[in-house]
């Protein structure tokens, strides 16, 4: 066994910011490394250029992925990543623009931008790290918190039906919709790899374990137990149907690619219009 100073992924990481601010056992880091591996694979295959990747991150623990990766990376206000990323994509269409954020960031306060990006089939890769809670602010309810769960702002139980992100995305027009889990990094990497190759919108919901905060609410704060609790709820399917996307903490979650099509994306439509106008 060896102890070293460099990790093979370090070339893609702002190592000066390590160790990360994430809690021990927080699986956001696994989401990040799975993504970096997928990117690395595409770069090595010559399918992606490192200087043509832009990350956009908002505010939240999950959004901090954008803080650690060594690519062009823009942070912005809580919830406002998608319009910012959209503008970058329009002006730098050769870039792969990747939005990362939490369930609160993208689905609560950022919900409208998500809705319209989906509708437009906007050429973005949107990664929602779903830990089912507001981690950074200390444990408030999120749109993906299971029904009836205790949180600090629903101390008598969450009265709201959680959002099924997969169903939303499939109903609206994204080209690629998948669910992954931080507990299944190999599969996650494959999903990311595929998503990186898409035109139009690719949305990936990644279930993630937050031992510190969500863990406290469900009484499982040990990182390993927290990890295993989530892992045990995951079912892997090859081409799951939309009905299998059901989002229910009790019944567990099916991961896999729910939708993979090749409709024209927004950028395609826009350049078609502008091409006829500008003649190039």
């Amino acid at each position, binding site marked *: 066994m060896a102890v070293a100073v460099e990790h093979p992924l370090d070339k893609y990481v*702002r190592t*000066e*910011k390590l160790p990360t601010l994430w809690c021990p056992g927080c699986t956001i880091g696994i989401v990040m490394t799975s993504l970096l591996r997928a990117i690395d694979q595409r770069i090595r295959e010559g399918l992606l250029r*490192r*200087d*043509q*990747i*832009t990350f*956009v991150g908002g*505010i939240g623990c999950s959004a901090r992925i954008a*803080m650690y990766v*060594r*690519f*062009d*990376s*823009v*942070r*912005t*206000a809580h919830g*406002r990543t*998608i*319009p*910012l*990323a*959209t*503008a*970058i994509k*329009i*002006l*730098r269409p050769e*870039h792969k623009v990747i939005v990362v954020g939490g369930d609160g960031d993208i689905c609560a306060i950022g919900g*409208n*931008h998500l*809705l*319209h990006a989906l509708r437009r089939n906007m050429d973005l890769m949107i990664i929602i790290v779903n830990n089912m809670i507001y981690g950074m602010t200390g444990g408030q309810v999120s749109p993906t918190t299971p029904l009836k769960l205790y949180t600090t702002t629903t101390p008598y139980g969450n009265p709201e039906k959680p959002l099924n992100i997969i169903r939303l995305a499939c109903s609206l027009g994204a080209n690629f919709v998948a669910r992954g889990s931080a507990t299944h990094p190999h599969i996650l990497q494959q999903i990311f790899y595929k998503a990186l190759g898409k035109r139009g919108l690719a949305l990936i919901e990644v279930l993630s374990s937050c031992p510190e905060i969500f863990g406290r609410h469900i009484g499982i704060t040990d990182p390993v137990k927290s990890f295993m609790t989530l892992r045990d709820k995951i079912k892997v399917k090859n081409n799951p149907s939309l009905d299998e996307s059901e989002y229910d903490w009790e019944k567990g979650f099916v991961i896999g690619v729910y939708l993979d099509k090749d409709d024209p994306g927004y950028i395609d439509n*826009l350049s078609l219009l*502008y091409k006829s*106008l*500008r003649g190039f």
Partner: protein
Amino acid sequence: MRIDYISGNRAIAEAAIASGLKFFAGYPITPSSDIFEYLAEELPRRGGYVIQFEDELASIYAVIGASWTCSKAMTATSGPGFSLMVEGISIAVMTETPLVIAYIMRAGPATGVPTKTGQYDVFQAEYGFHGGLPIPVFAPSNPQEAYDLTIKAFNTSEILRTPVVLLSDASIANMFGKVLIREAGEIEIIDRRSIEILRKKGCEWSLDDVYEMKCVGDGYDIYVETLTHDEKNIYRPTTDVQRRLMWRLYRKIINNREVLFEYSFHNYGNKRCRNMIITYGSTFSSVSEAVRELNKNEEDFCVFKLKTLYPINEKIFYEKTRDVDKIFVVENNVGLYVKEIRSILRDKDVISISVIDLEYPDPDEIVERVREWL
């Protein structure tokens, strides 16, 4: 160079194009929409993009995103929309993102009278976003000024890496005038790529507190941080770093007050100026007429019209008012900007004449209100 007869809104759009605008994001709102609509026609033909977003929040963040590709970017809006943009402006202040917001004021609060005028939002334009760092605000009073100040707004935003508000109103939006339109080659157009050149060759701007801006696509590792950060964009929650950051951002604007502060002085043929009216924006139109009337009785009135509301060059204020007895501040609101002036001109009578009017205030009313103090 050509002469045209155009509205204030059209002048803004024309000047934005001349300034090199590449990206406009917006959400329609009266009385700003025709800026958007004119650009939607014109800009795509010149290689730019004009996109309607789902709301004003998306619009301002899209403008920020565009700016980080080193494209010149703007939006246009009015009260309710500006209110939705203030969070984004605070982000732009912190991330030092150049952008221009054309704020076409209308009568408020709330939805008020969408098509009619008012100058209610002067303080919101200056101070309306969290973080307590005011940004440059230019206020044209006619189409030509709308044109010239729009160009200045773009240059300022690029040179100082700051959001800039161009504060117009419903009356100016529909005011027409003879405008000298200069094309790209005929005016000095600066972008952030040329700042280093500017810095080296020396210029009237104070650039010590401005850092070079690298954009998406320039290499592969720009990092834009909205948290308190040091010179390397690393998050550092210490008083030390916070102080350095705050004061630098503050100085960056205020130390350029001499370049940024614009005004015009009108003495209408009087030798001396015993009574001064300070005003700005569309109200100037009425004031100029009122003064003509007032001066009929040899009352020695002159007008000091502000074209920059922030930052102010106090020196000019002191100079211009040295021999003045009485100062009147005429505004189409409950009396707001007069406070700013009172905080500067401390040894003079500064009288607030606030005339709320959905149209150009009636000159006769101004005359009457001023005469009460003579």
